[in-house]
């Protein structure tokens, strides 16, 4: 496996891999997102308690789940980078941070917009909302630390350490429901043996979840390409790439 994996530690090969993967993530991701949200918005049955407001679930739950998984993925990438000295792993990590922050913001925003009709206020200091907010702070901290360094090599390592420190908080976020019982409803789709959601409602949710996951992967790959270019500025292959991508209109 190492023989197969090792070439991708080289930036140029990693860049090629990103270019190959991007369309396979982006377009199916957008398609699944569209199908999932349209199905959820128009065709899923109404919730007998919450009426049509429950349809926010089709964006809220996928973003809430994936905001945490993206952070864990970031920490795994950081660990790989630190243990095996992979420069590309740090690039993958920092590529995930902004998209993770955006997904966390979406989870928070939709949570607030769902809370208003259900709980009567935009914001409650409920355990899961609060931990989601902390997660957003953790993302912003990693991004800020990365931005503070001139040397991006050093910045990647530093941000990686911070991501690993923050990941200790993710289990606390996940189990916070049990730790501080508050008015947030229990987890909806993690209990597969006895689902508390009708299958007609569940399917579009799973499709939206898959779509958002693919979308995050696509953006990660896009941003990773940027990171690779940023660090390989002076290499000839970047020059060729720029010439090909921008056209040789005023070539040197």
């Amino acid at each position: 496996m190492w023989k197969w994996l090792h070439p991708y530690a080289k930036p140029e090969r990693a860049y090629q891999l990103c270019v190959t993967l991007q369309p396979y993530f982006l377009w199916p991701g957008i398609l699944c997102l569209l199908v999932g949200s349209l199905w959820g918005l128009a065709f899923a049955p109404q919730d007998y308690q919450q009426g049509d407001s429950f349809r926010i679930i089709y964006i809220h739950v996928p973003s809430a789940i994936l905001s945490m998984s993206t952070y864990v993925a970031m920490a795994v990438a950081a660990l790989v980078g630190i243990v095996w000295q992979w420069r590309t792993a740090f690039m993958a990590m920092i590529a995930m941070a902004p998209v993770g922050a955006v997904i966390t913001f979406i989870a928070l925003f939709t949570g607030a917009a769902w809370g208003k009709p259900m709980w009567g206020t935009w914001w409650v200091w409920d355990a899961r909302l609060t931990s989601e907010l902390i997660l957003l702070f953790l993302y912003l901290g990693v991004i800020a630390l990365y931005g503070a360094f001139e040397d991006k090599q050093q910045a990647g390592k530093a941000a990686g350490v911070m991501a690993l420190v923050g990941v200790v908080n993710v289990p606390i976020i996940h189990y916070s429901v049990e730790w501080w019982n508050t008015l947030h409803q229990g987890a909806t789709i993690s209990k597969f043996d006895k689902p508390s959601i009708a299958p007609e409602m569940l399917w579009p949710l799973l499709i939206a979840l898959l779509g958002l996951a693919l979308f995050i992967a696509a953006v990660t790959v896009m941003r990773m390409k940027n990171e690779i270019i940023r660090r390989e500025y002076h290499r000839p292959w970047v020059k060729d790439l720029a010439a090909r991508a921008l056209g040789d209109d005023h070539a040197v």
Partner: protein
Amino acid sequence: MNTLINGIFKRDMALAFRQRSELAQPLMFLLMVITLFPLGIGPGPVTLQKIGPGVIWIAAILSSLLAMERLFRDDFWDGSLEQYMLSGQSVAAIAAIKVLVHWLVSFLPLVLFSPLLALFLNLTVDMYVALMLTLVLGTPLLSLVGAIAVGLTVGLQRGGVLLALLLIPVFIPLLIFATSAVDSAALQLPYRAQLAIIGAMLMLAMATAPFAIAYALKVSQN
């Protein structure tokens, strides 16, 4: 190995006590922040008792953030950190000893100070005992985890605010469990569970933080 560790311990203690004013400033800051709360919220004894544990812990975290930067700053800029790294000794052990010194000079006085704070905020004796226990278990955690971020930001020119941005979210679980322990004590409920969780976090930090600090210092030293 032992002579170096001993030497660093003695040197850092001597340095800390020679800069007494710098040592006392965070404590004065803590005292003043605590004073602001009764002035801002009102001196009602019931209110103060209700917010007291949270106020003391928040003030402790904020004042620790102010003092935290000192942990590696001087050693970094005068080059002794580089010498430690070149000495061939375990950087993790050196980091651990520096964190210990930092705890002794900046948090131990705070723990000793806490009866006064408890008095100011009208805490009962039960609450005070719980507060003391959470401070004893929690402040080493602040030092250990804080040192990682200090190690990362020590090379940056303006790392102060960034340090706070990095650390405040990480300290939130500690704040929650510590204040919930004191609140339970106020209601005469057992609070061993919260203490156990803080203790577990401390054990985890003690086992892993020195290595993380060593790595962070290496990254900063580049």
